[in-house]
């Protein structure tokens, strides 16, 4: 029986094939075929394997029955909740150089937990405070790990 492919599966396979071709071209650029023990040979072998494997994947995926539309891609592969969560992570990483790790992590945890958990605004704040206290004590105080500082409030971690 022919398997039905998931929404976006063929596009992903094609994207990986394109990536593999670029990687092969870049690998060739390292030292070409100057010698069989040059630094570019092994990267070329790896990239060529990727090209061959992704061609096989594209071929197999293209033979499968189409499985979804643009709408089902959003529902199955990139649901709104996941896009929202990724946006929170992106905002967390963007804010970290400015605010520093602890304030940025506090904001991220509070907003993400409040949005995903849906238990009002007080419970997520309590969970966030408890989690951050544990993180600070465990990693900063016990493990002595240096956490990123922000430029706006450098005194705060």
């Amino acid at each position, binding site marked *: 029986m*022919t398997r039905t492919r*998931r929404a*976006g*599966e063929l596009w*992903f*396979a094609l994207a*990986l094939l394109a990536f*593999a071709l670029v*990687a092969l071209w*870049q*690998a060739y650029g*390292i*030292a070409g075929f100057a*010698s*069989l*023990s040059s*630094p*570019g*040979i*092994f*990267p070329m072998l*790896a*990239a060529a*394997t*990727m090209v*061959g*494997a*992704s061609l*096989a*994947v594209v071929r*197999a995926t293209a033979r499968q029955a189409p499985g979804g539309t643009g709408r089902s891609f959003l529902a199955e*592969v990139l*649901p709104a*909740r*996941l896009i929202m*969560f*990724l946006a*929170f*992570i992106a905002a*967390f*990483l963007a804010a*970290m150089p400015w605010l520093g*790790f602890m304030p940025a*992590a506090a904001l*991220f*945890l509070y907003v*993400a*937990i409040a949005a*995903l*958990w849906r238990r009002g605004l007080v419970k997520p704040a309590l*969970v966030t405070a408890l*989690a951050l206290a544990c*993180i600070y004590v465990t*990693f900063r105080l016990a*493990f*002595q*790990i*240096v*956490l*990123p500082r922000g430029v706006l409030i450098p005194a705060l971690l």
Partner: protein
Amino acid sequence: MADMANFFLAWLDPWLLLLTAAGTFAGIYIGAIPGLSVTMAASILISFTFKWEVNEALALIAGVFVGGVYGGSRTAILLNIPGAPSAIATALDGYPLAKKGLAGEAIGLTTLMSVLGGFIGILALALLAPPISALALSFQSRDYLLLGLIGILLVGTLSGDFAKGAFAGALGVLIGMVGLDPMTAEGRFTFGTITLMGGIHYVVAMIGFFGVAEALIQIRQIDTAAVRQTVSRVIPPWGDVKRYLGLALRSSGIGTIIGALPGTGGDIAALLAYDQARRSTKNPEVPFGEGAKEGLVAPEAANNAAVGGAFIPMLTLGIPGDAVTAVIIGALFIHGLKPGPLLLTDTPHLFWFLVGALTLANIFLLIFGLTGIRVFTKIVECPKAILMPLIIVLSVVGAYAIQNNPADIYWMLAFGVLGYFMKLYGYPVAPVILGVILGPMMDENYRRAMIGARGDPLVFLADFATHPISLVLTVGFLLMLASQTPLWPGRRRPR
């Protein structure tokens, strides 16, 4: 003999004792919480143990590994959600037992047989690693190249789709090539930027592919609810222990052998042992799949025995068998150790320390496994809506802690997103990690072998056929490759 005394080092030093206990305890809970895998935990944890003494890091990691492999069985029995892939077979009969009100007894029996399996795996490690290591001392560069290829090939083929596994393994090798070439200092995939000259740290890739990617997958299934069971008696009846001892020993043997084969881990060991138990048990009290205790004993003894087994190729040949051992091999590299034949020659005291720490972790497993089950059920019910944002924060700390480089955080996120799509579309991510770790080793050994053959491809290829060890490994590699083609008997071209 003096080196063997290190076996008891973790037992006698209170701090190491505490770390092993803490690791085992944490491993049980991490392994038990669906969505948190022992690979994910170990990959995040390793970045924090970066500056620790090697013994401290090994004690903690040994505990997490042993506890994590066992932990998955708890939720498999109580919630019908295997906490780890190695507990998939456990759920088949564990959950039906729990539904009959026998959850406590099932957990008790599971714990006891897991510990027994663990001891057998460690015994095999202690007995077999020194002779294998001695044999491996005669390995040449080309043999290491072949071992690396075999390791990646085996893990890559486990997903069932060879092309996807091969792509993942090659992608890992490519990521491992980024940075300055260690032999000629020539830039590879650096695009002229200083940030990439030092390469991409494999722990960053591990956290991305296992931690972040898994958190993103879990976000999609955040509303999955679990059913709770009541827990009564935990200590199994003596009659049950005696009755299933033979099966547990057989399954432990299977687990040790499967664990020792590069590319197979606790999950395959557990499934094979379950299958073997189903075939060999003529008249089970209860049919398999409906709460047969044999179906619980076999996979649990096997998956914990696979832990000791998995350490054999990792420590003697430097070949990680599966994703978890790939992560642990990374931990050993971080602490300046070089897993491979020289590990037992240069640092035998660390080998015996690790064997002792694994044994101790199994004893802690027995203690923690038979206690605190009611508290446990509360903890594993922690909502994913809280857990997943926390994992992201921990992953950020872990990625940054390796080199205090913010770029590592962005790489981690990029790998996480890529890992999410790969997992979703059926690409295995474990070969990527194996590739990142083994890629530089394979590249170095390939080039050494080629230089040894004076750049002549015919001499290079002839060396694989004219040296006994290389010949055996080459035949093994070619057979594995052939088994993935339609030419192999019983393997048809997919339609």
